């Protein structure tokens, strides 16, 4: 796989023998599957539910709000730009507010807000989508069952999204994908130019917010790293490739003496996965392996990030605490605050004892992708689906390619990166090219029976 091959020399300082290539592909796959599933669901919903002829109430309200009623019902470039800029400004303000709250350590209000937001999305948007589906498909479900099932399902999924420790990992991931699908579908109801302007604006915002020194996301990340806490936000985390070591391993490890070959590189990931060399597994060979890695902290499972960044800080801290369980992560974030970035485990800044609250150490587990990325990828593909399936395929490939490039860059730079810009740029470029050039070509070929 090109990704793995390219990433391997980059992460070459890892002593990893076969494990780098072994698990890197699987890591990438475990991130690509949910992104693809989210996009597929949004495309399905859009195909089933959208009627391009009737403007949605959302478009009408936007047109009314911006006061531009001329011509195409508010769907001109000026309106689009105004809406997009307004949205970006709102998101920036919200992110700064989030950073401020995080700085003031009022995590309960953040968590409460996130919980409320997740529940609102699932209940209101989910209910609306369900009603639309029922109406469109004329499925004769009765009101009593519906009233019983909807709050139940919404509550269960919200719980699954917020408290990953108490539900199966698959359900937690499914809940996050469900939230992303619903929000993305809602966004596709915007008028066309507005959607595209919004996507481009969000990509630029993401780039600025994560990479510029004053950007809100960067401030937030630095705060989180400095304090070794998790940002309460909706973040999708892929299941770790190596489930040998679990959180309970960590727990029973707590009372023990530090061994030189201990945890150095391991990290307990959000979902309580432990990466880990430090855990002595149940086989002698692994213990032996762990011993040989004593000096080298790098976890051979190359969560691309981890690798080299770990060694300097870790080698003197065999006692490094494991990251604590999950309970802090995966807080719901408001739609704008689903951190749209792809985040490696930041490196530990120093030695600490077992710290229940640490951010995932490097060499941690799986790749984390913010839910905002899921949403905007799906919005792009959903909007492409409103035109034709050809654009869907092209945009899907473009987004996956962009995601792969971002992962490569992640391996290279080893810090949190914005996941939106590359993919959105490629997606928009491919959409434009497909719609203007490829379609002509394919249609001409088909009508002349040259190629189908």
């Amino acid at each position, binding site marked *: 796989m090109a990704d793995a091959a390219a990433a391997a020399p980059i992460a070459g300082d890892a002593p990893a023998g076969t494990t780098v290539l072994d698990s890197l592909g699987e890591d990438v796959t475990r991130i690509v599957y949910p992104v693809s599933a989210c996009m597929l669901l949004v495309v399905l919903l859009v195909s089933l539910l959208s009627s391009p002829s009737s403007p949605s109430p959302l478009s009408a309200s936007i047109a009314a709000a911006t006061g531009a009623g001329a011509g195409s019902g508010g769907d001109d470039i000026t309106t689009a730009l105004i809406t997009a800029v307004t949205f970006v400004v709102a998101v920036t303000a919200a992110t700064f507010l989030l950073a401020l709250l995080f700085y003031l350590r009022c995590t309960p209000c953040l968590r409460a807000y996130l919980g409320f937001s997740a529940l609102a999305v699932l209940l209101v948007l989910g209910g609306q989508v369900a009603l639309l589906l029922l109406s469109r498909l004329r499925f004769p479900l009765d009101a009593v*069952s519906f009233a019983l099932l909807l709050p139940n399902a919404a509550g269960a999924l919200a719980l*699954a999204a917020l408290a990953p420790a108490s539900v199966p990992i698959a359900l937690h991931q499914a809940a996050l994908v469900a939230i992303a699908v619903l929000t993305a579908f809602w966004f596709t109801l915007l008028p066309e130019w507005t959607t595209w302007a919004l996507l481009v604006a969000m990509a630029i915002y993401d780039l600025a917010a994560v990479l510029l020194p004053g950007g809100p996301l960067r401030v937030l990340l630095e705060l989180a790293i400095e304090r070794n806490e998790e940002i309460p936000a909706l973040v999708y985390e892929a299941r770790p490739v190596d489930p040998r070591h679990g959180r309970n*391993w960590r727990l029973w490890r707590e009372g023990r003496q530090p061994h030189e070959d201990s945890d150095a590189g391991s990290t307990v990931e959000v979902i*309580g996965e432990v990466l880990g060399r430090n855990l002595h597994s149940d086989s*002698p060979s692994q213990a032996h392996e762990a011993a040989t890695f004593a000096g080298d902290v790098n976890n051979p499972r190359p969560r691309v990030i981890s690798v080299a960044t770990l060694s300097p800080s870790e080698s003197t801290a065999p006692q490094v605490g494991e990251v604590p369980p999950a309970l802090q992560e995966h807080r719901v974030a408001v739609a704008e605050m689903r951190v749209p970035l792809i985040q490696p485990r930041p490196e530990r800044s120093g030695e600490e004892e077992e710290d229940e609250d640490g951010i995932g150490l490097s060499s941690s587990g799986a790749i984390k992708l913010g839910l905002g990325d899921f949403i905007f990828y799906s919005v792009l593909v959903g909007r492409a689906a409103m035109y034709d399936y050809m654009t869907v395929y092209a945009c899907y490939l473009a987004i996956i390619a962009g995601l792969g490039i971002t992962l490569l860059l992640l391996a290279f730079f080893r810090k949190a990166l914005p996941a939106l810009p590359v993919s959105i740029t490629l997606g928009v470029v491919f959409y434009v090219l497909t719609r203007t050039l490829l379609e002509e070509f394919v249609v001409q070929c088909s009508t002349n029976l040259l190629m189908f």
Partner: protein
Amino acid sequence: METRVAGVPEDEESGLLPRPSAAGRRAASRGPRLQPPPASWATVDGPLGLPLEEAEGHARRFFLWGFACLPFLWAINCCYFWPVLRSPAASSPAPFASIRPYVVRSAIGFTIFSIVLITWATTFIVGGERLFGPSWNDLVMYNVAEKLGISGFMG
């Protein structure tokens, strides 16, 4: 692997290389003494799931909250503790015994709920107007939605 010197108390090496535990050794005696990890995991996620000492409290909480008209919590309980449910009652490992009653009762509760719901929904769908008369139209969800005006997508 471990050739222990006779007479060396177990504690000394209990932290080094965990051996697969007998079913008897349990989470209860944690603390400074390191127990090897349990031979079987209570949750469907295996090593990534809840540790055993938290599992019982969790199962009980979900079971009790399920009575608040949230039967899906029972379903989550069953799915999450699937290994506990599937292990035969006679030979299940010791720690499962405390979790098992809650999981089994959750399973029963969810089964009853789903049977009732499916029966009602199927009767409604299949019976249609023949069975219910004109009130069928008042109960069907899409009509209710249209009547309440919520079937259009809100802004």
